[in-house]
């Protein structure tokens, strides 16, 4: 277990660590922020983060330093930082631990980011269900304010940094950055079409940076130990640093594990995760949260970094690895995820709104053993019509379970349909409207 050095989870794994300001300071907390406040130029900070190769931990993996550099420097009026803590991807639970167990690490990252981009106000948009996280953060913010890390005139620099916690109301789509901004503005959480991007027209149409919790938590460490140190960890040049992976499913030791980028799935599942739950062979795994396409055992030796996974036809996403053992029905697995996406589709754009209900109803029919062979082509057709035609990335996400299970396990679908055809040979042809 101690094979890899931990960065983010290091503190909280010390016995008795409560995450209070005092304890955080003892472990070297807020040193990076002090260093920054002593007069580091924002452009230097951005340069450091760029050099470190840190990429967004929320799912898309956009280089953080580059994102920051998009913020117009001489913009009059306010700029904002939003911490995306609406961790609602099924199978992902890393941000929750970071916020609940070591809140100051996140706050320090946010404070540095605010300093860098020139934002006076930052929001943490936390998922509605994380009531404990919201409480812990609120306390931590109060502590940090008292200690002068936040509030007006932080650490005597004359700058103001205020952080507010905003609890969501439980919509998956609010994890999408523009929908998050809409929700934060008090509107219905629906994605905006891009461009313009949040970097220029974000919260209240002001320049805004939206970063994931884990991304922000990495910032203090990069500034403390230098970009070169961070860039050497993991799988440089494209996948630097460590990553917290959330193991779940049919596995012996589910939980959060911080490992450097570029570890193989085989090592992750069989060594770190302790192998399959009932020692049955592995059938499938989702490498990066519910919206990442399924992978098969032949992909076990793929390295866990952005590029390798993209080449394998999936994505690193939010780092939630869900493992499925032999005997799991892949139709059921796809349906289960599809039902989630159907429930969470916001209804803004047509393909996703109507497509998700169509897909889920067709899948339900197949799993009820009332399907037909033509349904399979219909499913793929629908997926093709949804993919790439929606306002946000939700469209791609919602078709991925069907497309990937269909690619690897089409026979399971066919088997269910053959059973249906055998059981109901007459009812096989469901009346079509034009025939009535």
């Amino acid at each position, binding site marked *: 277990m101690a094979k890899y050095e931990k960065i983010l989870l290091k503190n909280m794994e010390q016995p008795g660590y409560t995450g209070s300001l005092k304890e955080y300071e003892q472990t070297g907390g807020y040193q990076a922020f002090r260093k920054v406040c002593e007069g580091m130029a924002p452009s230097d900070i951005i340069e450091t983060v760029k050099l470190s190769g840190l990429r967004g931990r929320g799912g898309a993996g956009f280089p953080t330093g580059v994102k920051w550099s998009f913020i117009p420097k001489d913009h009059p009026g306010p700029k904002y930082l939003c911490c995306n803590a609406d961790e609602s991807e099924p199978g992902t639970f890393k941000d929750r631990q970071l916020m609940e167990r070591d809140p100051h690490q996140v706050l320090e990252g946010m404070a540095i980011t605010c300093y860098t981009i020139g934002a006076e106000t930052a929001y943490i948009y936390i998922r509605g269900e994380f009531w404990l996280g919201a409480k812990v953060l609120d306390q931590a913010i109060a502590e940090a304010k008292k200690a002068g890390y936040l509030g007006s005139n932080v650490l005597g620099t004359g700058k103001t940094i205020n952080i507010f916690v905003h609890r969501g109301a439980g919509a998956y789509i609010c994890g999408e950055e523009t929908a998050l901004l809409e929700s934060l503005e008090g509107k219905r959480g629906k994605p905006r079409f891009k461009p313009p991007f949040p970097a220029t027209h974000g919260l209240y149409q002001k320049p805004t940076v939206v970063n994931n919790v884990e991304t922000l938590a990495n910032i203090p460490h990069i500034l403390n130990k230098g970009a070169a140190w961070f860039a050497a960890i993991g799988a440089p040049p494209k996948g630097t640093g460590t990553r917290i992976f959330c193991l779940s499913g049919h596995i012996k030791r589910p939980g959060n594990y911080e490992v450097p980028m570029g570890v193989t799935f085989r090592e992750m599942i069989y060594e770190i995760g302790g192998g399959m739950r009932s020692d049955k062979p592995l059938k499938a795994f989702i490498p990066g949260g519910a919206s990442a396409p399924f992978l098969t055992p032949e992909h076990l030796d793929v390295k866990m970094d952005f590029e390798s996974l993209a080449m394998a036809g999936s994505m690193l996403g939010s780092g939630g690895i869900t493992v499925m053992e032999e005997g799991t029905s892949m139709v059921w697995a796809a349906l289960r995820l599809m039902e989630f996406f159907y*429930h969470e589709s916001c209804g803004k754009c*047509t393909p996703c709104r*109507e497509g998700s209900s169509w897909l889920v109803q067709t899948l339900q029919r197949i799993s009820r053993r009332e399907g037909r062979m033509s349904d399979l082509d219909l499913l793929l057709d629908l997926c093709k019509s949804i993919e790439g035609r929606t306002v946000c990335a939700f469209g791609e996400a919602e078709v991925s379970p069907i497309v990937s299970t269909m690619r690897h396990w089409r026979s399971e679908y066919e088997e269910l349909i053959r059973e249906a055809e055998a059981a109901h040979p007459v009812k096989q042809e469901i009346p079509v*409207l034009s025939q009535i």
Partner: protein
Amino acid sequence: MSEHTTTGMVTVTIDDVTASVPKGTLVIEAARQLGVMIPHFCYHPKLAPDANCRMCLVEIEKMPRLQTSCSTQVTEGMVVRSSVPTVKQARKSVLDFILANHPLDCPVCDQGGRCDLQDFSHEYTASGTKFVELKRVFQKEYFSPVIETQMNRCVQCLRCVRYCDEVMDVRALAPAGRGTLTKIKSFGVHELDCEFCGGCVQICPVGAITSRLSMYEFRPWMLKRTESTCGYCGDGCQMTFQAKDNDLIEVNSTLGVGRNNGDLCSRGYFGYHANVHEDRLQSPMIRCDGELVEVPWEEALAVVAEKLTAIKSANGADAIGGLIASRCTNEDLYLFQKFMRVVIGTNQLDSSARYGHMNGIHALQRVQGTHRWSMSFDDLLSANAILTVGTNLTETNPITALKVKEAVKRRGAELITVEALEPAIGTISNIALLSTHHLPLAPDQFASGTIGLLKAVIQENLVDAELVAHAKDYIDAIKKQVDAISWTDIEARTGLTAEIFQDSAKVFTRAERAVILVGQGVLRSQGGYGMTLNLMDLLVLTGKLNRIGCGLAPLAEENNDQGSVEMGAVSELLPGGKDCRSREAQQSLEAAWGCSLPSGEEGTLMDMLGKAKRGILKAMIIVGENPIGSLPPDSGIEDAIGKLEFLVCQELFLTDTAKRADVIFPACSYAEKDGTFTSTEGHTQAVRKAIEPLGESRPDWEILSALSVMMDHPLEYESVKAIGKEMRDLMPGTRTLGPSPLPPRPCLDTLTQYLQEGYQDTLATRYCLPGMKATHTFVLNVGQSIFHSGKFSTRAKGLIQIQSQGVLSMHPEDAERLGLACGDGVCLENQLGQVKTTVKLSDRIPCGVLFFPEHFDQDIQRLFAVSVDNDTHVPYFKCAHVEVSKAS
């Protein structure tokens, strides 16, 4: 408009057609300009792009995936393809998705036949669908009186929601629910309660939101379209009557047509039924033994001609007076005044513009020598600062209000509102919420507000430097007046501190282009003429009077108030707005008409009533106006009408006045005749005949023309066009349809004259603060409601369904103090009488003010005293001080 021209053009190729379009144009717009129709649901030129329907996907070179053309701006050298197979397949798939849950009820849907979804389905999808699951069904929760939603048909383009928010600023609609179960809802589990502008009905691309009024009575292909002008308020909206079998079915408006540019208000959209109400008079009537009996036209005309001739020869021409409603067309108004001046030979004539609009006209004539605005409607959009005084804009002139909203929300104009309005969020929009400086006043204290602004201008040295150089006396005179008034006095009356006046004055002065909108609250209340002159002083002092795009705009309440002034249908003005005492004007008119003009004294409405009471005026011809309904009993109107020897009415309905008439001619409504209306800004627009006249009713001009023939002074015209030609010859530029004329520039001679001595005579009377009400009393104000206009609209079944009766509005704090709840009976009392009514709580109106819609309940009129303006003879009767108690 100017954004594009300054930043240049870009070249774009769409479906192999290359053209240059202004930079910043959306691809869908550019395609339309090149003649390529890209199908869409959610895109609308009036709304910000939302890109949610995904119907307008096109292929753009060098861009990954298909792009939505409604949200992509063209760039130099862009190559767009909208008819390649991938694009067609994408459209087909989007339609498949939409049709999956869309019910197959086109045959019973009112949109069937003009539905975007139907059209695109015909174009892109084969019949039949692969969707075999159960369709989603929404059950109805309630049925609305005028706007019906059928959510099963909705395509979720959110045009209605966005229109309601972005254009109307009402926000009555919102999407509720997620995914495919999203539906458009109004707030709460009750029927829609909003401004009922009908915008959502018009903007819905499918049949999800339809009008309940004509539901299922038509199919679109049966309708006969007639472009016409709305006959309710002075905004002069262009609209389309849709008629079927001589019955009005619905009203639409067209994007890009007229000042309203596709928008209408509830009166325009739901008020058309008033024209074809079953109570319409359909044949002439004469009084026989005290009863009105129907007679043929010949008989009725002969009786009137004979009687009028007899009165004229016995008592002189000045024993006959005429009154016309400003709802008539310009041609009617012109012929009416010509009839009175030539056939009868009297100057005793007036129109309903006298009720208030004349104040604005006189003020404009006095200071800038024009009888029109010196700015145009479009200048509202380019204004940097807009000052509204006593307009209650949303309710009286809804389309002007839309322009103000657009100026503020889209173009960043600063809005100063001096209104009897509180910035409360409600079911109808509130411009006080948009204003940068809001000065809430009681309706009887607008004079204090304007004086406050003037005092701030003088005190803060905001006076135009050029004016200081050449009109020092004028400035000193005003300074002397305002110095005599202390801030404490103003604060006591308005409840506002000097700072807010000073801030507002600074904003107003700073603006490059500043516009003052003056509404009924000023024009129709005590001292309206003085207040309007004071506001002109504000323009003069800040040096804006003569600047392009600046000006003072009195807003007309009736659709053709401006027309009746320009047609000379008021006693002191000749056609063309010329002074009737000017010898020059008289001579040119006499030359044109070939007869001499009457030399008798002028008689305005109130003069005529006074003379009638004294028995000097023997007969009256009243065209479309109902003075008994409009004037309170205190004016002695019933007495005056009762003493008349002979009363002729040309009316649509048997109004209170018509009931007293000796002869009634049935006139036809503006939907049944041709003609023109002149909007408040002075734009003449066509009124066209949508249906044949009901029964035996005839246009007013035809009746007057027939009467003139029988009285041996034939004024014969073959059609309205012939009258129009005469008008055009007499007043060049009048009745020229087409784009609105350029606004007149202020006449510098008049201005110089005003600055030298013209201002002096009224100075003392207009620069004094109005009296204060006793603390325990309330200011009772009658005025216009957003859903009605005059008494005419109360005949429209749609509007009656929205608002069927008048209820007294009171601020909740006042009500709490008096122990009143919504729906309680209250007793209003002052020295003139006592009236019982019911109360409604509204936080829109300020504390200490009561509001009652003027369209209903004559009874409340008893509380109002009438006073007449010395200069303009306008009767004031809109405000009264009353005590309120709970009715037992």
